[in-house]
């Protein structure tokens, strides 16, 4: 059956034309020369004052990248990207700021407009004052401010731009960088390894529960630049961290490339919760402009009983190519993926997850909801695999898609690979597996079967959305009321 009116209205309310963050900031920028070469990589590395091994690492990645082919298996199409016509480094010209007063006021204004508090006394919009969030603000290729650093360091938590971490904690970075997403992982990750400029580095020491939520806010501003950030989060034994990520970009007629890499490492008994609201400029209704969001995100549950949970709300980008994954290496480790992807206009989304079960008794859960409207294409692509040694692995996957209008498409491409008999995998893409008991209970009280189903499913979706930190409440609120009625599987 077609989608209900309420859902249609909700999706419209997050329509492309209402993109609020499309403004541009005019400030003087310093850029690398146009194009990509070993010289440009040396330039970036020198700008960041990096150790020699890091430059070699980048150059190795670049040489490898030259031999690689751009992937074409995703269900997205776009004009060939001219990698030699981009700027790989762009930073505000003013020297690195030691305090907020030294930051270019234009940049401060930008973050104000975006509702991102860079002063520690401020808090995010709509959040109770006692809930504080530490923010790392990345503007094009550099981090312009990181808040609450001192307070966090009292707890032993390291939260800083990765370029700074490379200088201050080179051994720690070297130990983990590229250990989850290897340099040669894929075309875009290799490109990122060669040219990444900034991003956040987080280390939570053993047994520490991070005293506040950490967040990074990415902003692309400069024309013709690509943003290549790299985030590395390490949760040592028994620690916990919740990390949020947000992103926006100006409205422009040409496309811009965003190729990030995020690596998470959870050691024994540690837990990382990673939430994203992806709101890059999606292009206009005719498909002009917008960000190409080609991102590699992967978490490694390296220790026993560790847990990594990805939650994403995707509404932006002209093209999304993104598969936040979990490698469940430690015994009894757990991976989760909760996703809501809304596409509108001419957007193309090819997103999903990978749950790779390697350890014993590992469990994973995938809940994905794709909603396509306008002339967009929305694809869920996911892999669940159990290695021979992953005895007792369990997975439950549920992916639903909803189409609004007959000009869009919704697609599901799951891969389910089981290599041992004790692994139990269940995959479903309909609402048919709702507990008969619950349905019967509701129907006993006078609801029709459809109403009962909708009630149960909506209750379930609410649960998923409640996984999102408060900061995302505003966006999430709009999505909560989207019903699954008319879901096509």
């Amino acid at each position, binding site marked *: 059956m077609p989608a209900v009116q309420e859902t249609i209205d909700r999706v419209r309310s997050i329509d492309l034309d209402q993109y609020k963050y499309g403004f541009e900031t005019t400030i003087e920028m310093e850029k690398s020369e146009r194009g990509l070469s070993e010289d440009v990589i040396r330039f970036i590395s020198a700008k960041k004052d990096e150790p020699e091994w890091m430059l070699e690492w980048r150059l190795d990645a670049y040489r490898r990248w030259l031999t690689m*082919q751009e992937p074409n298996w995703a269900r997205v199409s776009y004009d060939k990207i001219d990698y030699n016509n981009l700027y790989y480094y762009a930073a505000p010209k003013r020297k690195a700021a030691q305090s907020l007063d030294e930051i270019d006021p234009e940049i401060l204004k930008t973050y104000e407009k975006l509702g991102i508090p860079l002063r520690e006394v401020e808090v995010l919009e709509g959040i109770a004052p006692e809930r504080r969030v530490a923010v790392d603000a990345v503007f094009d290729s550099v981090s312009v401010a990181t808040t609450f650093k001192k307070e966090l360091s009292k707890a032993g938590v390291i939260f800083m731009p990765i370029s700074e971490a490379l200088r201050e904690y080179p051994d720690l970075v070297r130990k983990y960088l590229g250990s989850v997403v290897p340099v040669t992982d894929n075309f875009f990750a290799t490109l990122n390894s060669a040219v990444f400029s900034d991003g956040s580095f987080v280390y939570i020491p053993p047994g520490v529960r991070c005293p506040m939520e950490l967040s990074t806010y990415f902003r692309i501003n400069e024309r013709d630049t690509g943003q290549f950030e790299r985030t590395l989060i390490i949760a040592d034994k028994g620690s916990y961290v919740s990390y949020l990520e947000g992103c926006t970009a100006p409205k422009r007629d040409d496309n811009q490339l965003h190729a990030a890499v995020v690596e998470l490492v959870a050691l024994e008994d540690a837990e990382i919760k990673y939430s994203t609201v992806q709101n890059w400029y999606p292009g206009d209704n005719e498909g002009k402009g917008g960000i190409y969001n080609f991102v590699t995100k992967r978490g490694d549950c390296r220790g026993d009983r560790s847990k990594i949970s990805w939650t994403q709300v995707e509404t932006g980008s002209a093209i999304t190519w993104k598969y936040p994954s979990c490698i469940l290496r430690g015994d009894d480790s757990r991976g989760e993926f909760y996703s809501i992807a809304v596409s509108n206009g001419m957007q193309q989304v090819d997103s999903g997850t990978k749950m790779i079960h390697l350890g014993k008794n590992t469990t994973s859960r995938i809940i994905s909801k794709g909603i396509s409207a306008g002339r967009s294409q929305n694809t869920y692509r996911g892999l669940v695999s159990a290695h021979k040694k992953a005895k007792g692995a369990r997975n439950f996957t549920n992916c639903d898609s909803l189409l609004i209008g007959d000009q*869009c498409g919704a697609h599901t491409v799951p891969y389910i690979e*089981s290599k041992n008999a*004790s692994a*139990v995998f269940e*995959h479903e893409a*309909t609402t048919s597996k709702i507990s008969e008991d619950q349905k019967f209970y509701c129907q006993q009280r006078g609801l029709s079967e459809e109403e009962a189903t909708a009630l149960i499913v909506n209750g379930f979706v609410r649960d998923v959305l409640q996984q999102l930190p408060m900061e995302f409440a505003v966006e999430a609120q709009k999505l909560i009321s989207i019903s699954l009625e008319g879901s096509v599987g």
Partner: protein
Amino acid sequence: MADIKNLRTSAETGLSKLFETTRQSLATHEQIAREEAFKFFEATGLPSRRVEAFKYTDLRAAIVEAAPPAEAPSADAAKAAISSAKGLANVEAVRLTFVNGHLVAGLSDLGRVPAGVTVTPLNEALAKGDVRLGQLAPVEQTRENPIYQLNTAFLADGALISVEAGARVETPVHLRFVGTGETAFSTATRVLVTVGEGAEFSLFETHEGPNGIAYQPNDVVDAVIADKATLRHTRLNREGDKAVALSTIAARLGAEAHIESVNLVFGGALSRHQIYLHFAGENATATVNGAAMLGDGQLADSTLLADHAAVGGVSREQFKTVIDGDATGVFQGKIIVRQIAQQTDGKMKSDCLLLTDEGQMMNKPELEIFADDVACGHGATCGAPDEELLFYLMARGLPKPVAESLLVQAFIGEALESVTHDGARNALIGEVEGWLKARG
């Protein structure tokens, strides 16, 4: 960024040489279609796991050498070969016997064809111009498939079966494919079935061959099912243990047409059965099931494409795989719902029972939906037999192997239930029991 080109394998070079030599001996008709098909194949080569549709079934690795096309067998050899062909042998049917991919008239019931049905050997039909090779591709997507195209290029024999409009044919036609030989050989057959408006027709296919010989059959059934017509198709694979068996059924359904297709797989070192359905007319329905029971060293791939291109189509697909030893099961299913195909109802399910820790199952149930008023779903499960169910049966005095066999039989049975023909269904169940008995 470098372009990556695969080196040609010995099998690919071998196929090119074979095509060079056989193109002379092939009938002069349809030369262009064959040349085009081979050109397509030459451009793609044998698909490796880098090709998405062959991700789990790497033909480039599996076909090491191209086996030469089998010659038509002598009358004695053919007779000897069919004496061992047991598949559906006890079910009442009109039989067309193919030995090594060649129709053997002497061992076929060409004179006993039921009323309303005409059977013409394919070469004769092509020579007369009754049918053209281009017409033999009722589903567009097969043109992109290297297995189908290889079949077109090397096509040696087959049959054209036409069912008159309105004919309700009770006696099934049984296509009995038997392979025989001491060394590796290949076969390529094509059977075209046209079921006229409102007609009903049942088709059996059985495939058997020698153990220990790495022969390479490539069999295609093309079906054009007219409005309100029904085709019931039952297929049994009992190929030899070293065979690399490729097969395709491609069916085009008219308005309110129906297809019922069941494929039961036991044989082959590697088997890949491709099912293409094109819902061309409104309110067409399809029930497509598959079951595979695999032992050590086997790989069985079921690949399905259901293309809904008209309003109100209903498709039900259910695939069951039982894996013993270190076998591998593959299911790739894709339901496409085009923009025009509103009110489509498609459900696809693949379940797997892993009896050992060495076995593996790869499931890829895809949906591609462009219409907003549809109900499509897919499900996939995989796991060992339920301990609780086993315990229940054992608590009632059954030894574990018997209890396990019962569960397996019930599991597979679900996929075979849709076979309408009682005799055929019972014969398939008998085959399942035989497999379980042999397993012990």
